[in-house]
């Protein structure tokens, strides 16, 4: 199988594109669905090659494939994977299969176009995670934007136009900012090759002035923060989620949001560590606001889909905190939590979507006592909600625990405070998720319309059981997952480790006021 | 002896009067005539330079400008006739079919 290692990434990325060609050739909605399923499943299987041939001891990139693409601009087709992108790619292929399955019946209009866009989206998302050339990365980044906007705008719910345009313009603005920064970086270094830029910046071959580094950092950061979405940039998310079709919501929450933290880990931290340290406190504070704010807003949502959307804002806050406290455990937890969030929030959207298919409303008041009419559904519902809450033995627990530990033991100032505030987020999550479960699943079956609801069919059971099994598996077999990412995360945070314990202790004991310190660092050039 | 700048000043004055005509006249044909006036102003500059430089090129240039002006006049007047047939007016301010 070794010969496959050179091309496996490309196969994974472009199999959905071949699927699009196949889709163009078939007629009839039934055939279209089957072909889409076959190709997403095939992509998933192919992508499983990756974890089984990944050397967990290496922190560098593997499965590298390099071709010259546009020599005049020194642009290469350069793809590869490290521990960071490995699981996210597999998550993408997995959720794409789920996406096809949940759209099986709910998408009746323009089916072929729907699945073409879904497959295009898959290619884009996979490309984002494995591109090692900044230009290629940007290309794939934008490629995800267009199909997602279409999925929301065409197959969405009532206010789909508003949501689609808002989504497109928000992310477009962010990505243009990133394009500007990529070009500037190219201007400074003369290459788009991520590995070269990283090595050059680390070794001092390319020198960025502190101001330049800060501006570049912020340019990339804002683009990613919009995608995450970090607290003040999150307003597009509830609209997009609520209006998107189920498959769109699943992929949006499951994968597209992960592109933000992925980008931060990959670019902001690896390329601009000084600026990252400089800004980390502000970002962590935004993340904390996001946790609390998202949870509180989720708690009062009557709309179930909005509830899940705001819970994403809250959950993503954890990941941001973990990333910007620069501890290896925390970063491990962040990656793991990205996967967990993809699985469990994706699962929550699937659950909401199944109810919507039956009742055509997201209003929580319309439901209640679903356990009596749909016991299997209720079982899966509770399982996935528990995973999202972070119940021990399930996947969410591992990620949140690692994040807490990582944050608490981090060398950054006020790490304890961050960890404690973040920990309250877990309580908030339990609050609104259990509140929701009580209102929907338990209680009295008061609404007459709910009495005739059909139980899950085989396809739906297949979808939910695969998600449910994954939550269990990831809860129990977390070392297998975390092993693969250990070397990468260690390399990732190595830059941030304090030179000696003494300096760390010094910093922790006497922290000057935050604002004054940031200003001082700006003026002195960001040095420690 | 006449300074070159006198000729150039005359040329500039004629050109500017042409521009003024283009901006302020309301009758399409007069607007077009103003453009011809501008071209005449330019021609004078060419001939004056030609003389100052002791070169024939400026003269030839004027010749071509006249040729072009003739072709432009033929087409321009045809356009004016077509507009007149459609609209029955030659007032620039009436040309308002295309506006925001």
């Amino acid at each position, binding site marked *: 199988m070794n010969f496959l290692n050179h091309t496996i990434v490309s196969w994974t990325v472009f199999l959905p594109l071949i699927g699009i060609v196949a889709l163009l050739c078939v007629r009839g909605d039934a055939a279209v669905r089957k072909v889409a399923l076959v190709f997403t499943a095939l992509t998933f299987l192919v992508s499983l090659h990756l974890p089984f041939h990944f050397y967990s001891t290496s922190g560098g990139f593997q499965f590298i494939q390099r071709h010259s693409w546009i020599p005049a601009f020194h642009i290469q087709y350069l793809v590869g994977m490290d521990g960071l992108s490995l699981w996210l790619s597999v998550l993408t292929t997995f959720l794409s299969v789920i996406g096809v399955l949940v759209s099986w019946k709910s998408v009746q209009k323009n089916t072929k176009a729907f699945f073409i866009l879904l497959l295009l989206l898959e290619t884009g998302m996979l490309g984002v995670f494995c591109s090692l050339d900044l230009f290629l990365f940007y290309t794939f980044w934008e490629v995800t934007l267009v199909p997602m906007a279409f999925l929301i705008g065409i197959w969405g719910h009532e206010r789909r136009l508003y949501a689609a345009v808002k989504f497109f313009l928000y992310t477009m603005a962010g990505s243009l900012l990133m394009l500007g920064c990529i070009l500037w970086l190219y201007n400074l270094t003369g290459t788009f090759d991520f590995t070269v830029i990283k090595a050059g910046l680390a070794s001092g071959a390319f020198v960025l002035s502190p101001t330049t580094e800060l501006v570049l950092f912020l340019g990339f950061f804002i683009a990613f923060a919009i995608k995450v979405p970090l607290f003040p940039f999150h307003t597009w998310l509830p609209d997009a989620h609520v209006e998107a079709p189920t498959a769109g919501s699943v992929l949006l929450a499951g994968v597209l949001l992960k592109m933000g933290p992925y980008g931060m880990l990959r670019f902001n931290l690896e390329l601009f560590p000084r600026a990252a340290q400089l800004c980390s406190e502000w970002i962590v504070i935004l993340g904390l606001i996001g946790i609390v704010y998202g949870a509180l807003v989720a708690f009062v949502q009557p709309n179930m889909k909005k509830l899940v959307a705001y819970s994403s804002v809250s959950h993503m806050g954890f990941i941001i905190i973990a990333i910007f406290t620069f501890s290896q455990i925390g970063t491990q937890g962040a990656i793991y939590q990205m996967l967990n969030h993809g699985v469990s929030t994706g699962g929550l959207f699937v659950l909401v979507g199944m109810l919507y298919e039956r009742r055509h409303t997201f209003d929580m008041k319309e439901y209640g006592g679903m356990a009596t009419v749909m016991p299997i559904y209720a079982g899966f519902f509770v399982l996935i909600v528990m995973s999202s809450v972070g119940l021990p033995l399930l996947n969410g627990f591992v990620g949140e625990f690692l994040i807490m530990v990582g944050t608490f033991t981090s060398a950054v100032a006020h790490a304890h405070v961050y960890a404690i505030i973040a920990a309250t987020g877990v309580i908030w999550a339990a609050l609104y998720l259990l509140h929701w479960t009580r209102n929907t699943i338990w209680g009295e079956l008061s609404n007459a319309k709910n009495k005739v609801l059909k139980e899950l069919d085989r396809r739906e059971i297949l979808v939910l059981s695969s998600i449910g099994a994954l939550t269990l598996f990831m809860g129990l077999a977390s070392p297998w997952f975390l092993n693969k990412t250990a070397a990468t995360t260690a390399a990732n945070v190595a830059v941030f480790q304090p030179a000696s314990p003494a300096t760390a202790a010094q910093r922790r004991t006497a922290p000057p006021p935050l604002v004054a310190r940031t200003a001082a660092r700006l003026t002195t050039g960001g040095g420690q | 002896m006449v300074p*070159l700048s006198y000729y150039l000043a005359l040329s500039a004055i004629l050109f500017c009067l042409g521009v003024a005509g283009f901006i*302020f006249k309301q009758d399409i*044909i007069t607007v077009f005539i103003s453009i011809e006036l501008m071209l005449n102003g330019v021609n004078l500059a060419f001939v*004056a330079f030609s003389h100052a430089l*002791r070169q*024939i090129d400026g003269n030839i240039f004027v010749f071509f400008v006249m040729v072009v002006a003739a072709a432009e006049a033929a087409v321009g007047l045809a356009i004016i006739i077509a507009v007149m047939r459609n609209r029955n007016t030659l007032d620039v301010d009436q040309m308002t079919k295309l506006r925001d």
Partner: protein
Amino acid sequence: MQLTLFLIFAVLAVAGAINLLIQRHPIYSALSLVAVMFALAVEYLILGAEFIAFIQVIVYAGAIMVLFVFVIMVLNAGEVAPAPKSRVAAWIGLPVLALFAILVIGQVYGAFGATQLGLGEYLVQTGPVGNSLFHDFLLPFEVTSVLFLVGVLGAVVLAARQDKAPKPAIAQAEAEEPKAMAAGQR
């Protein structure tokens, strides 16, 4: 002597140009332009541009301007009543124009103030012009034929009466916008 000649005809040309602007009826404007052209023809002669002076009279003033006058007569174009709206343009346009004139005159004066042009110092006769046209300027000379072809085609396309009007076009369009299409009926 030369300066006197220059000034006389310069004043004539400027007067003609101003008259062009003042006159309301296009026919007077056209005739004013003819006057300007004659004055300029004399200036060309003073500058030794014999050939240009003659074709200025024969072709420009004689042929092209006659075409103008002819069209004015055919269209029976009359005076256009001044509209209040175009005064707005005057407020914006005049200062810009004045600025531009001062600028241009200033520039050329500054750059060429010292150069004197004498009468008869340099004479361009028809022979050298022809020679030059068929050697150095062969390409533009040939290409102008394309220009004239375009002119002919343009006149044919735009102004010639058509053998038959495009019937369905008008029928359909009339239903939608009757007044815009009224002219197409002829």
